[in-house]
């Protein structure tokens, strides 16, 4: 693993745009904090997605203009948002009933590690002095029909985030369906990491070298 991040593959915005391409029209989608939030900017033409934010809003719209918005209209990341026509507000138990009851089509989350069996670690680095904080991540991965992860392929230190087995504390067991990174799109298959697509200018070996478990080539 190298320690410097080469300027290859997709940018954060390009990763977000790539994820959006795979979301079917009419989907109910929960977007995690970070790169997932950017997805809302890239709804493909002719499609309509309904964004859910677990603090109690279905029909979340884009952020207000800088300095605008209201302190009591926020998303799960506690940032100000807007609402679109057809929106509804509800309390937390109802909001997580949507999540736990399998009513959301898709959740896109960040990750610390994804294992080849779909295990996800994204809430804690397990450092003994860190204050643990989990939020809604465990509820989302346990309840939402499909879990996409969007993340840099490696950590800032160049360590692979796609691994044989997670070493960080787990968020959920076998929950991830697909991973979108700066380098590739990878499906979690019965046999492990199945390459779906390489980012422009990236080749198989380059991705495999930065992946902590075998990568299955496109057949």
């Amino acid at each position: 693993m190298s320690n410097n991040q080469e300027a290859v593959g997709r940018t954060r915005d390009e990763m977000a745009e790539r994820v959006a391409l795979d979301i079917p029209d009419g989907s109910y989608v929960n977007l995690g904090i970070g790169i997932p939030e950017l997805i809302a900017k890239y709804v493909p033409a002719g499609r309509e997605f309904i964004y859910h934010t677990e603090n109690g809003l279905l029909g979340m719209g884009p952020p207000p203009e800088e300095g605008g918005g209201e302190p009591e209209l926020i998303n799960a990341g506690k940032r100000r948002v807007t609402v679109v026509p057809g929106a509804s507000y509800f309390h937390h138990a109802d909001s997580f009933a949507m999540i736990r009851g399998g009513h959301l089509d898709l959740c896109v989350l960040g990750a610390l590690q994804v294992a080849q069996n779909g295990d996800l670690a994204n809430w804690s680095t397990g450092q003994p002095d860190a204050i643990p904080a989990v939020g809604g991540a465990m509820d989302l991965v346990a309840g939402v029909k499909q879990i996409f992860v969007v993340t840099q392929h490696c950590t800032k230190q160049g360590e692979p985030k796609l691994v044989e087995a997670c070493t960080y504390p787990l968020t959920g067991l076998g929950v991830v369906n697909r991973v979108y990174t700066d380098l590739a799109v990878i499906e979690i298959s019965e046999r492990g990491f199945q390459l779906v697509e390489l980012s422009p200018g990236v080749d198989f070996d380059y991705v495999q070298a930065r992946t902590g478990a075998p990568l299955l080539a496109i057949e």
Partner: protein
Amino acid sequence: MINKQIAGTAEAVADVFDGATIMIGGFGEAGSPIELIHALIDQGATNLTVVNNNTGGGEVGLAALIKAGRVSKMICSFPRTANSTVFPKLYHSGATKLELVPQGTLAERIRAGGAGIPAFYTATSVGTPLEEGKERRTIDGRDYVLEYGLTGDFALIRGRMADRYGNVLYNKTARNFSPVMAMACKTTIVQVEDVVDGGELDPEAVVTPGIFVNRVVEQKNPAYESVLIADGVSYP
């Protein structure tokens, strides 16, 4: 573009299959989706398990569905009502089975089904004949029974108003079981008097968010069970 509006009741129930579990909203006639039930009778699906608080009245709506021999099992809390004459015959003949569930347990089991809660404990029915077959557990010194979440294939619901996203408002006590049934079924079909434009419903006042609704049918001037019975109507 998301548009859950369907042209008519026949189209809305076209894919109901034999053996399906159908949750039907309504408490007595309040909130009973009569036109959707009549469309289901016309459609012909049979061997249905139906979840409703009651068993319908007269020979219209749910009672007509039962009379037509389509219901092999009722899950309800109160199968006797003043106008309920159809169910007793089929119950006594063994043609329609009954799972009797206390009303609040029924509501909570449906809510649990919709909320991804597979099972929960409640004090209701402890020490009564309806505890039979249930697991008992003592928590903090009180006895409870284990109850399981209930889900369905289709929910048939009657609301007052909806938009193309499937957001629904109800009318007074016609709300009853419908919001939790909408949560608990794979396909939720709602008849409303008015389909309004997206954005016309106050997001603070939406009762059933569109995520729980699959199909919306506009049914102007819906029938009321009591009126049909008074008029001597027998469906079909």
